[in-house]
């Protein structure tokens, strides 16, 4: 450095700096910052999922910024805003979904608030006790995107990936079935009820069920579904038979299905096929009645105790049921009668035939003509009649019995009327009443006046007889009494002589100075004296025992 100050040979440095790169390398720093910042921004925007709105009836435990949407326990979104809907009746929850879940937000996706739930069929959502409630999510099958949803009140019973099929049941009433009620196949839980609603006409209940995968193949066109809740107790000759599906079914209600063994032709069914829900297994397994004949019966007696559904029996075997109980008014004659409509299922009766006759019986049923001919023959030639009978003496339940009364008044069947009338005979109780009435009527007809006259005559005769008797007695009085008096006098004499005898005896034996008594008294006095001296002796001996040896010592 020192040399440099000495030397002036070096070229003079210019004050103007040399041309350098105008752009310094330091600009890489803001460039880099910009790239990173923009990169993050782009990543943010790219990862931004769709924002959706879910409307809930109540958003219990849902908080903005804290509640997540979870699918398979993975967060796929976060609640950003919770506010009341514009009509104040619902809650609008705004959710920012993850980009990864954007494809899941389709039309039929389901959302519901997961909270701890304790139901008869299980406990769910316990994890939310710690983590707080979250919104459950279930993917849909549709491809149509949607941004506004309505949340479910309860979690869906089944998830979409669960293998199995949906079916629909038609029931008369819901019974104890609820959402989540189990469905059993041979006492294995095979599915559950997922929804129910009243049919549009209000006359039945539509129940939607889901049958899980291995079991759904056992559902075919002949499968019967029945209500399996509660106990099924039947008392038979073999004892008491109690059937119960499970304790859960007993408490929470349940359904069961099975295919009857007797059914040979069964076809596979598609999903969402509709079945009838029977009230119990017996009803479900009843043979379907393809032939049903309606008849009407007119009774002139009380129908109290006869209800719709009461059985109709032929020789005691069930073959139909009562479908209507009402009245029949004939305006001309002003006669009111009981009208009972019955439906007969001839197939059930034919089923009781033996094997040889079964085929013939079935063949006969197939033709309406032959059925009519059979019925006509039974009624007109064999005296088939309907009768009200008491099925239960305690409750007074009645049923209709078809039996043969060859003696009954002849009747004809008029096939032109619908329903056809079957002639009736009065019930046995009624019969008895009629008989008693008959007896009373006969009693009524007795000739009481004639009898009265006769009785009067008899009485007159009787009076005379009595008078005769009186005379006879008088006569006896007159003849016999004097003799009796005599006898009495003699008797008196005898008695007085007996009295004398007794008095003499008295003088010798029991009189005051009778000699026998005197002697007896003396003897007794003597004995008393002896006893006294003996006592003196013994007293002395007790004091002086030595006297026995030495003799009495003089004092």
């Amino acid at each position, binding site marked *: *450095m020192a040399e*440099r*100050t000495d030397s002036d040979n*070096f070229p*003079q*440095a*210019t*004050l103007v*700096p040399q041309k350098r790169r105008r752009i*310094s390398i*330091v*600009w890489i*720093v*803001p460039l*880099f*910052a*910009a790239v990173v*910042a923009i990169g*993050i*921004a782009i990543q943010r925007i790219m990862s931004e999922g769709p924002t959706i709105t879910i409307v809930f009836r109540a958003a219990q435990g849902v908080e903005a*910024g*804290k509640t*997540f949407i979870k699918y398979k326990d993975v967060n796929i979104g976060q609640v950003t805003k919770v506010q009341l809907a514009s009509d104040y009746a619902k809650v609008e929850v705004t959710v920012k979904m993850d980009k990864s879940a954007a494809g899941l937000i389709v039309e039929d996706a389901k959302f519901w608030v997961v909270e701890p739930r304790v139901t008869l069929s299980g406990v769910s959502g316990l994890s939310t006790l*710690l*983590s*707080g409630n979250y919104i459950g999510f279930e993917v849909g099958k549709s491809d149509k995107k949607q941004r506004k949803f309505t949340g479910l009140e309860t979690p869906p019973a089944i998830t979409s990936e669960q293998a199995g099929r949906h079916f629909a049941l038609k029931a008369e009433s819901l019974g104890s079935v609820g959402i989540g009620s189990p469905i059993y196949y041979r006492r294995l839980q095979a599915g559950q009820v997922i929804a129910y609603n009243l049919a549009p006409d209000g006359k039945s209940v539509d129940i939607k069920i889901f049958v899980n995968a291995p079991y759904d193949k056992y559902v075919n066109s002949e499968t019967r579904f029945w209500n399996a809740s509660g106990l099924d107790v039947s008392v038979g000759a073999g004892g008491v038979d109690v059937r119960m599906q499970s304790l859960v079914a007993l408490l929470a209600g349940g359904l069961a299905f099975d295919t009857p063994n007797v059914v040979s032709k069964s076809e596979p069914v598609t999903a969402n096929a509709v079945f009838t829900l029977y009230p119990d297994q017996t009803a479900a397994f009843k043979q379907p009645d393809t032939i049903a004949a309606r008849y009407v019966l007119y009774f002139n007696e009380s129908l109290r105790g006869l209800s719709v559904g009461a059985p109709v029996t032929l020789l005691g075997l069930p073959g139909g049921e009562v479908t209507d109980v009402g009245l029949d008014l004939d305006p001309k004659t002003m006669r009111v009668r009981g009208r009972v409509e019955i439906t007969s299922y001839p197939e059930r009766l034919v089923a009781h035939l033996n094997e040889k006759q079964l085929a013939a019986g079935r063949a006969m049923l197939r033709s309406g003509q032959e059925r009519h001919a059979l019925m006509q023959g039974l009624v007109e030639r064999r005296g088939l009649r309907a009768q009200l009978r008491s099925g239960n003496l305690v409750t007074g339940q009645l049923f209709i019995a078809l039996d043969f009364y060859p003696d009954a008044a002849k009747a004809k069947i008029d096939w032109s009327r619908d329903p056809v009338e079957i002639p009736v005979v009065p019930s046995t109780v009624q019969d008895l009443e009629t008989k008693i009435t008959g007896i009373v009527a006969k009693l009524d007809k007795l000739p009481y006046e004639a009898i009265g006259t006769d009785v009067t005559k008899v009485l007159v005769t009787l009076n005379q007889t009595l008078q005769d008797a009186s005379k006879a007695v008088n006569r006896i009085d007159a003849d016999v009494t004097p003799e009796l008096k005599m006898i009495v006098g003699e008797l008196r004499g005898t008695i007085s002589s007996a009295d004398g005898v007794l008095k003499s005896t008295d003088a010798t034996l029991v009189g005051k100075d009778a000699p026998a008594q005197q002697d007896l008294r003396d003897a007794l006095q003597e004995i008393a004296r002896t006893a006294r001296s003996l006592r003196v002796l013994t007293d002395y001996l007790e004091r002086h025992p030595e006297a026995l040896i030495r003799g009495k010592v003089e004092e």
Partner: protein
Amino acid sequence: MSAIPATAAEAGLLSCEYCHLLARPAGAGEPGFCPRCGAELSWRRHHSIQYTWALVIAAAICYIPANALPVLNTTTLGSTDSDTIIGGVVFLYTSGSWPLALVVLIASVMVPLGKLVALAYLLITVQKRSLGSNRERTRLYRIVEFVGRWSMLDVFVDTFTVALVQLSPLMSVDPGPGVLFFAAVVVLTMFAAESFDPRLIWDSNAGNEHG
């Protein structure tokens, strides 16, 4: 040009930036080295304005994500809360401790922004050869330089919290990406303040060209 030279450069002298020894340059184009401390002498720092601009812009870019992104992720019983700086200020304010909110607002939001604005103002005035208030501008520069070393408080608090609150699985705190950008803002503004040559403020009067 006034009779009394306003700067050393006008008098043909230059001062050492480190030991402040006033010396004659070794040559007109090449100032040489300080004869006392041996540091390289320069009339004015090379590309001071360009460097400072670059760093200020970089800091300004980083300032946006520093405030937009969360600085702390608090996980409590499975639910995660992400807090940005502004979110923290709002939380402190709504929970009643407005003085604390004010402190955080000033230290973490206003000060970095103020530094950026101040540096940009200095650069613009220097480039426009603005006259007047040189003294104020110099004071502003000194404040910026002084404040720089205190601006890392947020980052320190963040790291302490993250290190201390690790009560997994009950509660845990993780740093968010925002804190990185915040640190970048602080560091870049410090470098920017460092690269700015305050002598340029006074050059405006002389009309020298040492950009």
